[in-house]
C-alpha cells in the first residue's frame, strides 16, 4: 500500500524521568530542594516513561496527530502525586493499570473528588480553566497510570470531567471503544480522536479500521505481545501508523492487553 508510514518505539527507547519530592543536589553546599509540584513525603518518587512529551522536557517523540503526551507513570505510595496545579485547554485522560488514583479537580459547579481503580479511566477537558491534584494515598501499593494529553480544536470551552470503566473479564477478545464519538457506550471527546482497548487470549487475529487513512493509529502494548505489519511488539513497545485503511494484527501471548489510540493527523 502506498503512502503509508510507521514508526516503532521500543519500551526502553521512551523518555525516562524520575522525579523526587525532595531533590538532593550534589556539591559541598548542597541543600535539599523541595519540589513544589510533587506531593508526598521526601522520599516520594514518580517515574515517568514517555512515548510523547514536550520537546526538551523528555527525549520522547514530539507528539502524534493531536496527541501531545503519552506516558506511563508510577507513583510511589504514601501520598505521592501532583499537587493542585492549573491547566487550560488540554484534554487529559488517565487509564488506571494498578493501585488507586485519588483525583481532585475543579470541574462542574462543585468540583470532583474521585477514586479510580484498575480498569477505571477519566477524561478531563480543562477548556477555559481547571485545576487538579492526583495522588496515590495508599500506604503500601504503587499506582500505575497511563496518561494521554490531547490538543483540542476549540480553545476555552466549558471544562468537563467524565469517567468510566473497562472490564477485561466481561469483554475479552474484543476491541472495545473507551473514548469515542461513534458509540454511546464510550465517553465522548471534543476532537477527532478515539481510544480503544483489547484484552486478548493468545493466538487471535484482529483487524483495526481507522475512520480514514488520514487518521493515525498508535498501538501500545500494556502487557503481552503482538505481531503487527510484520513487526513484533512486546510489553510497553508501541507503534505509530499513518496512511492505512486497515491494519491486521495477531496476538502472540496470553493476557495481552493493548491500548489503541486513533487521531486525525
Amino acid at each position, binding site marked *: 500500500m502506498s503512502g503509508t508510514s510507521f514508526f516503532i518505539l521500543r519500551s526502553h527507547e521512551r523518555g525516562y524521568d524520575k522525579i523526587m519530592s525532595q531533590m538532593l543536589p550534589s556539591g559541598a553546599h548542597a541543600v535539599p530542594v523541595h519540589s513544589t509540584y510533587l506531593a508526598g513525603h521526601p522520599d516520594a518518587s514518580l517515574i515517568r516513561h514517555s512515548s510523547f512529551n514536550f520537546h526538551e522536557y523528555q527525549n520522547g517523540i514530539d507528539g502524534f496527530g493531536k496527541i501531545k503526551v503519552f506516558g506511563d507513570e508510577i507513583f510511589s505510595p504514601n501520598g505521592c502525586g501532583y499537587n493542585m496545579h492549573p*491547566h*487550560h485547554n488540554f484534554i487529559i485522560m488517565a487509564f488506571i493499570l494498578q493501585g488507586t488514583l485519588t483525583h481532585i479537580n475543579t470541574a462542574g459547579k462543585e468540583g470532583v473528588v474521585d477514586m479510580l481503580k484498575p480498569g477505571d479511566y477519566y477524561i478531563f477537558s480543562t477548556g477555559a480553566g481547571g485545576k487538579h491534584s492526583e495522588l496515590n494515598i495508599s500506604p503500601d501499593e504503587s499506582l500505575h497510570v497511563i496518561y494521554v494529553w490531547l490538543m483540542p480544536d476549540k480553545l476555552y470551552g466549558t471544562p468537563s470531567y467524565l469517567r468510566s470503566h473497562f472490564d477485561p473479564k466481561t469483554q475479552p477478545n474484543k476491541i472495545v471503544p473507551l473514548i469515542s464519538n461513534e458509540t454511546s457506550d464510550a465517553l465522548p471527546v471534543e476532537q477527532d480522536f478515539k481510544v480503544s482497548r483489547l484484552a486478548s487470549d493468545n493466538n487471535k487475529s484482529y483487524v483495526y479500521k481507522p475512520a480514514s487513512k488520514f487518521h493515525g493509529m498508535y498501538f501500545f502494548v500494556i502487557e503481552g505481545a503482538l505481531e503487527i505489519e510484520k513487526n513484533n511488539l512486546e510489553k510497553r513497545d508501541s507503534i505509530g501508523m499513518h496512511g492505512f485503511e486497515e491494519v491486521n494484527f495477531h496476538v502472540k501471548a496470553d493476557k495481552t492487553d493493548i491500548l489503541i489510540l486513533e487521531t486525525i493527523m
Partner: protein
Amino acid sequence: MKKYMCLGCGFSYDEKLGLPDHGIAPGTKWEDIPDDWRCPDCGTKKSLFELVTIPY
C-alpha cells in the same frame, strides 16, 4: 486566530490582548517578550510555548 500555547499547562498568549496583569501591554509581539519569561501559571519556559492556529 493565532495564540502561543504553553505546552506545560495549556495557558495561552494572545499578542492583541497581552497580559496586562503580568506587565505585558496589549499588542506586545511574542518576539518582544524576554527569553527568560516563563508561563505565569506553571513556570514553563517561553521556548516551550507553541504557536497554535485556531479556526475561529
